[in-house]
């Protein structure tokens, strides 16, 4: 590693006079700056360029789930009026996990295969694995924003509105962070393990079961009479996020807190490790 003065000497006398010298940063400092700059780039694109697309992509599905299952079904007598109260935590979990998953996997596929734009970021001065980690972190941020927007939406759509009287805010916050990280990590596994021309097939095969076995539309406890299915849902990481949201937002019976925490943390750690390994395989031949 050369010192700042060596670097300055090596770059002296180049280019036009308006051009500033390259900042002489240690690799560690350069890594921190580069990671933050990658986040800044993604935030700029999300909020200054593609805000409408981002909102439509994240909110259309939950809006129609809430409307159909939370409002239409109770009004035509196909569900109980209080169903919306059980549905909302599930829709929050669904939005969190699916938004994070899609916002990691789809850009990865496009940037590695079609636009190749990830190459410029892989040459930025930070370890390649951190370029992947930044994808997970930013997709989680997008998912958290989307999930928070569900609350005012549900207040309007659901017949009973949203009752925040018994909310455990600390638990809710922890679930926003961990649930989105779990979804984004799973997205990184899908986005790097599958050949790009197969990603649409994978989405069809993976997403539908993920959505419908994740204790999204029913509390896990209610499956007591359908034991085999109740066991199957435990494989789905979204079950733990849904049950966690139910535990944080309502006072009905849910999976025990310890199991919820274990399920989410174990899924996140496993998928993140697998996903980052897949990312490095794509990033460095």
């Amino acid at each position, binding site marked *: 590693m050369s010192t700042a003065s060596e670097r300055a000497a090596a770059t002296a006398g180049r280019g036009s006079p308006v051009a500033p010298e390259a900042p002489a940063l240690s690799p560690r400092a350069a890594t921190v700056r580069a990671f933050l700059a990658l986040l800044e780039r993604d935030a700029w694109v999300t909020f200054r360029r593609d805000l409408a697309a981002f909102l439509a992509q994240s909110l259309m599905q939950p809006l129609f789930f809430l409307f159909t299952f939370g409002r239409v079904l109770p009004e035509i007598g196909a569900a109980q009026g209080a169903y919306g109260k059980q549905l909302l935590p599930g829709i929050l979990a669904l939005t969190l996990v699916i938004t994070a998953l899609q916002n990691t996997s789809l850009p990865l596929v496009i940037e590695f295969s079609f636009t190749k734009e990830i190459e410029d970021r892989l*040459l930025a001065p930070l370890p390649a694995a951190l370029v992947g980690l930044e994808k997970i972190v930013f997709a989680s941020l997008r998912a958290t924003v989307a999930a928070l927007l569900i609350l005012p939406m549900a207040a309007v759509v659901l017949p009973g509105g949203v009752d925040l009287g018994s909310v455990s805010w600390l638990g809710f916050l922890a679930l926003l962070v961990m649930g989105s990280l779990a979804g984004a990590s799973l997205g990184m596994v899908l986005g790097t393990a599958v050949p790009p021309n197969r990603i649409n097939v994978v989405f069809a095969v993976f997403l539908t079961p993920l959505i419908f076995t994740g204790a999204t539309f029913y509390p896990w406890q209610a499956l007591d009479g359908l034991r085999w299915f109740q066991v199957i849902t435990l494989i789905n990481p979204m079950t733990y996020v849904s049950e966690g949201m139910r535990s944080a937002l309502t006072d009905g019976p849910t999976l025990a807190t310890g199991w919820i925490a274990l399920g989410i943390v174990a899924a996140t750690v496993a998928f993140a490790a697998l996903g980052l390994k897949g990312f490095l395989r794509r990033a460095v031949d």
Partner: protein
Amino acid sequence: MAIIEVDELRKRYGPSGPEAVSGVSFTVRRGEVFGLLGPNGAGKTTTIGALTTRVRPTSGRVAVDGIDVQRDPVAVKQRIAVVPQRPNLDRVLSALENLTFHAAYFGYSRGDRKRRALALLDEFGLAGREGDRVDNYSGGMAQRLMIARALMHRPHVLFLDEPTTGLDPQSRLFLWDQIERLRREGTTILLTTHDMAEADRLCDRIAIVDHGKRIALDTPAGLRDLLPGARGVELTVVHPSDPAPALAALGDVETSAQEAGRWHARLYGEVTPAQALAAVDRMGAEIVDLRRIEGTLEDVFVQLTGRDLR
């Protein structure tokens, strides 16, 4: 002093795959323009990949500025820039934003990013188009923007992978001027190309690789010397009879008659133009045209790598 060191580099893709690079070694001196030539699939891009942190060598050592690429890739990335064969611009960003965010990755302050980006856009003939989405850029403009982007963080070493493939003659000349300017300013450049005229004009030294091995390394003139049979002088003279006997003392001669008493003669060997002119004078002939024959780099390249399609 060497700024790039490649020592016995080997790369095998997958455990049973073929070896893309089988023991390539060379060094590039600081400030040099170094050409890496070879047919498609010869191992050029893999070699560049190993130097730019994108390919993990199976064995051997590669270093930039004395830093082992495997051991400290971040420090290497701070010193290099890469212009790839195919466009990899950030398509949701404008041209200006492509440059400013690139500089942000390298730690430039907001004000510096914009000043430097606008100066480079101007230098690369893109002033007035900085707000365009890069999707709307032509191939030549995208190429110039990628080079401007690469220069944003003032790299010590610039890697250009087939920089002029597919460019129109204007863009190609412009790029050649830019490369010569960068060299004057002290940037080390490693470029790959199939264009022998380009390599001849730009490079201080050239390595030719084929089948994953380095088969030649020299200056362009040194490489041309590998074909001694293709050197000499070519003449057109007006003379009543075949000039071959009068020229035979200078070297091997081939002559052919042209219209209006003109003869075309090719003299092979170590013949200077002055010697040829003197011989023409002595026989009382009139000189119409004289040209030095030199083996082209392309001849050398084909001689070394064969005519087989890859």
